[in-house]
């Protein structure tokens, strides 16, 4: 489905990666790990159109994603969350799904079961971190993605929270969605993903 072909990217003379190749198949759940500065976030940014690669091709099915604007890529079904939780401080959670009310009511069961319900009337600053992360995933899910990138979704979680979160992903993310989890710690990937990749500086993508 999503394909990177010999993609290279550098910032101000520093090579983030070169000749990066991989394929993501439909319904595949992949964990992506690697140290600081190895370009994990850059990879997401390229896939979702926020950054342009210096060379190479990025294809979604038969469509080339190069040159498409982020919103166009998002409409093709490639969705993401953000490392720093992007929720508006001045809106209560209920107003932050950004989908028609009908869709919220249709998915009420999911929202209820994920433990967010009690927090729907609160501002993000009044909610614990796991709720905010779940909220972001839910928001992406309500926008019906086909590929979902999660950028460090479990950073700062305790052991129980992590398990709860993995359970949440397994239960509510439809298996038709391809999921890419980018993480420092491999724990969540081990719980959730079917395979994992490692990204290392100046080395091609390694499948582990």
């Amino acid at each position: 489905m999503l394909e990177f072909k010999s993609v290279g990217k550098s910032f101000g003379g520093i090579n983030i990666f070169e000749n990066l190749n991989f394929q993501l198949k439909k319904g595949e759940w992949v964990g992506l790990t690697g140290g600081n500065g190895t370009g994990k976030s850059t990879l997401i940014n390229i896939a979702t159109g926020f950054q342009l690669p210096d060379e190479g091709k990025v294809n979604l099915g038969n469509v080339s994603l190069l040159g498409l604007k982020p919103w166009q890529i998002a409409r093709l079904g490639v969705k993401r969350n953000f490392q720093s939780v992007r929720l508006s401080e001045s809106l209560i959670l209920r107003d932050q799904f950004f989908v028609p009310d009908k869709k919220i009511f249709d998915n009420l069961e999911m929202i209820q079961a994920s433990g967010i319900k009690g927090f729907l009337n609160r501002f993000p600053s009044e909610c614990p971190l796991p709720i905010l992360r779940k909220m972001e995933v839910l928001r992406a899910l309500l926008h019906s993605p086909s590929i979902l990138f999660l950028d460090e979704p479990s950073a700062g979680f305790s052991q129980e929270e992590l398990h709860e979160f993995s359970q949440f992903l397994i239960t509510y993310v439809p298996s038709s969605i391809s999921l890419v989890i980018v993480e420092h710690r491999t724990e969540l990937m081990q719980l959730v993903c079917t395979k994992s990749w490692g990204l290392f500086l100046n080395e091609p993508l390694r499948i582990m």
Partner: protein
Amino acid sequence: MEFLQTCIDGLLFGSAYSLLALSFSLLFGVMKRINLAFGSTLLLSAVFSLWIDSLFSIGIFGIFFLMIASSALINIYVEKLCFYPHSGKYGATVSMISSFAIWMQLDEMSSFLLPDRTASFPSFLPDSFFLKDLFIRIDQLFLFLIAVFMTSIFFYVLYKTNYGLLLRGVSFDGELAKKLGVNSGKISSFAFAFSGIFGAIAAFLILSTESQVTPFFGFWCTLKGLVAMMLGGIGSLPGAIIGGLFLGLVESNVINYLGAEYRDICTYLILLFILVVKPGGIMGSALLRDERAASERI
């Protein structure tokens, strides 16, 4: 020959615009903020100095130094009230509006000190001479020379002194400078005071060539400084100089060939044109919407 004459007039007066634009650029470069009250601080300092002069007759040099001192102080007042409290993403708009409110306040104070709506400003060297066929006013030539001198001082302070270096550091990445232990509050006060001093010298030169001060002077300074800065390119100091000279050239030529009433229209049309075609101005490079979104850390 007529064209040459207008160009020389334009360049001579444009140097004043350059000084104003430099003061603006300094603040925008460092603080990423627009100080709408800038012109009225200059007006107030001029009017205040004239008022003191009328009480104690401190003479032209007294006026000059008093203007510099009071302008620096008023600028620090503006900084503490409008810019220091506002940070963050929306800080730019809020502090701009806040400085607008202070603009009103300072203008009102000025008209309080200037009940007759206009006052004569002492002029120096009101002579003129002919260079072959070219008519040159000595005070305008003096204005130009001082502008060149001031600009070199400006660059010296910014590139060769400790504070200037810290200022450039803060302007590149204020957050980082703070983390490295640079007292950014002090630096921003310094930037404001510095731009106030700089602007006061420019205002003094302009007012004494015009030999009068009116309540519109503050607004005029703000607008001309902003426009010259935008023409040259935000954040580029050579751009501010070129923008000012260019503005002077355009204005004098338009006045000469089209008539005075077309002066400002042409200025704004050119500004609009440059913003649309080359938003970074003549020298600078602008971060446009999409690029800005891309460069923001995601």
